């Protein structure tokens, strides 16, 4: 019996290997570390992230490896760097938080790294089997992270809700994959694309499979009407975890959507952009309108993150290379600005997350002018006001959709942006225009080193990508070429 050895390119999966190593190291070291030296944990994780980022940015020749399971191309590299950025910033804003809540465990950081590995595999997956395993690795880590502050009931609720509904969504995802396999005979995306464009297939079966897949992915990206879990989970989870969940995992699911729908299903004679268009309009509108009425800042950011996924899907509905690259750019900008904003929220919320309401920002500008100014820049960017990066990101998305003739969709998106400006500006109103009536007895807020580092990265991204977007946009555009 002759066994042909599989194609293995360990350099391509280098970042994943480094993160797995760092996570295992954390778990091992965690056993031996005394409680007073637990502060080392985040730095070990951060070192792993930086090494992985170095590995991910080394030059590569676009190819698929592991028997066509894993695509090592610029698309993968773009997303890997995006995820590592998100994870790095999350670790930075977690340092003080985990110390305050006494959850500074090696496991917390190890699970963050496991989640990142899952996201990387999702972005790199060129086979539905790898897609599924990546999603599961990500989701399992997130279920636990959402409930990591075990003494808080809301956190337990968030974890359980996410787990039960997430398990249900996985069923849809698997069923969709099974039906696609049933109609084409393949799970490999390239082979599915070939079968779809060349064979006399059962399109009914394939359509149902693709729809079920879309439901499963829609759940993971929190698209309306599959978003019911989002507000409670985002509100219950520890703030750094919410920041993490709102950026990286969404980008990972969008990466899968772009790969699956634009690479494989695109050749099907069913207009899948209609489904994405409907999802995008619903997601933007419901997310924004719900965010409008929130008085809790954390919950508001949760709803607004739903609407941001909607904007990104507008770019997908354009179904062009330009649209997809705009989605990539959008998710990069969103990672920069959103994690920074959550970092400041974590500071304002103080211990045990007691003060996450909008009114807790009252008079923030008088006590912490610098932080308030940074928060203002970040929320302006989230609202899409030039010259911040959020504006450029929205601009490219809308432009690509107009070029694709999706005028109605763009109209809906622009109207939604206007709603977004209203509730984002409430932050500025509370911080600058309302006097703190009762003199507070609380100790003054001081930004920790980790938060300052995270905010510097965040500000750099928001201003650099807003003023000089060409270089990153070029990277995002090239990423689509090597599909």
């Amino acid at each position: 019996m002759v066994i042909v050895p599989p194609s293995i390119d360990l350099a391509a999966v280098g970042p994943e290997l480094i993160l797995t190593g760092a996570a295992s190291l954390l778990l091992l070291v965690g056993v031996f570390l005394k409680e007073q030296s637990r502060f080392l944990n985040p730095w070990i994780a951060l070192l792993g992230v930086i090494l992985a980022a170095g590995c991910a940015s080394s030059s590569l020749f676009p190819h698929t490896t592991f028997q066509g399971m894993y695509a090592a191309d610029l698309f993968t590299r773009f997303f890997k760097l995006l995820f590592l950025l998100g994870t790095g910033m999350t670790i930075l804003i977690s340092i003080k938080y985990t110390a305050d809540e006494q959850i500074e465990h090696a496991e917390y950081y190890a699970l963050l790294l496991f989640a990142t590995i899952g996201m990387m595999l999702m972005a790199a997956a060129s086979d539905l089997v790898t897609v599924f395993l990546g999603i599961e690795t990500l989701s399992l880590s997130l279920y636990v992270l959402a409930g990591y502050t075990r003494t808080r009931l809301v956190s337990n609720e968030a974890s359980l809700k996410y787990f039960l509904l997430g398990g249900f969504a996985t069923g849809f995802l698997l069923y969709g994959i099974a039906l696609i396999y049933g109609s084409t005979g393949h799970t490999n995306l390239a082979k599915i694309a070939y079968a779809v464009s060349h064979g006399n297939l059962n399109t009914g079966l394939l359509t149902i499979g693709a729809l079920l897949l879309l439901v499963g992915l829609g759940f993971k990206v929190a698209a309306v009407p599959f978003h019911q879990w989002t507000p409670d989970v985002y509100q219950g989870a520890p703030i750094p975890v919410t920041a993490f969940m709102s950026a990286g995992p969404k980008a990972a699911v969008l990466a899968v959507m772009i790969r699956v729908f634009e690479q494989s299903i695109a050749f099907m004679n069913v207009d899948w952009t209609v489904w994405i268009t409907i999802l995008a309009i619903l997601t933007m509108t419901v997310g924004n309108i719900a965010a409008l009425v929130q008085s809790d800042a954390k919950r508001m950011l949760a709803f607004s993150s739903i609407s941001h996924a909607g904007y990104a899907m507008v770019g997908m509905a354009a179904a062009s290379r330009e649209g997809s690259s705009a989605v990539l750019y959008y998710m990069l900008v969103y990672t920069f600005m959103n994690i920074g904003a959550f970092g400041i929220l974590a500071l304002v919320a103080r211990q045990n997350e007691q003060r996450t309401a909008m009114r807790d920002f009252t008079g923030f500008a008088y006590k912490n002018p610098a932080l308030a100014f940074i928060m203002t820049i970040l929320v302006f960017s989230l609202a899409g006001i030039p010259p911040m990066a959020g504006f450029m990101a929205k601009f490219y998305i809308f432009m690509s959709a107009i070029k694709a003739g999706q005028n109605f969709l763009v109209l809906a998106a622009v109207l939604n942006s206007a709603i977004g400006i209203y509730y984002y500006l409430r932050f500025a109103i509370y911080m600058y225009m309302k006097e703190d009536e009762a003199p507070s007895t609380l100790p003054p807020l001081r930004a920790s080193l980790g938060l300052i580092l995270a905010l510097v990265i965040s500000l750099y991204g928001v201003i650099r990508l807003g003023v000089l977007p060409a270089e990153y946009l070029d990277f995002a555009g090239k990423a689509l070429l090597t599909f």
Partner: protein
Amino acid sequence: MQLLIFYGFGFLALFSGIAMIMSRQPVTSALLMILNMFCLAGLYAQLGAHLIAALQVMVYAGAIMVLVLFVIMFLNLREKAGIVSKHGVMTQAVGIAVLGFVITAMVSKLDMAKLPAAKAPAADFGSVVAIGRVLFTDYLLPFEITSVLLLAAIVGAVVLAKRKV
């Protein structure tokens, strides 16, 4: 004969699946689930996938069911844990109508004639050798990812369940 066995297992699997979610007794549900798992194992065996069938019986009908029964025993669940009566008639009616619409739409879309022709499986289909060979060549990466996935799951379970981390 083969067809008869197939339909036998198929209908029994469907019946036990539906009965499982309808039953109000947790233990009855668990036992019906075992029946369902066994039927699936029978279907796998009929397809020639003997190893998968055996694993199905050992892992699902064996190990996992023991866990489920243990949990039921520990939680001391009584009859009250039924979901059927919790919702109003309207909610149920709407749910059934939507589900019915979706299923009709799905079935009407299906074009049985265009299902890919059944290919005769390879001679060693479903054997331990064949599965092992594919697992460590074509599916090497998924196999390795699964180990990371399981590690994350173990760490997560310990974190959530331990009294003091």
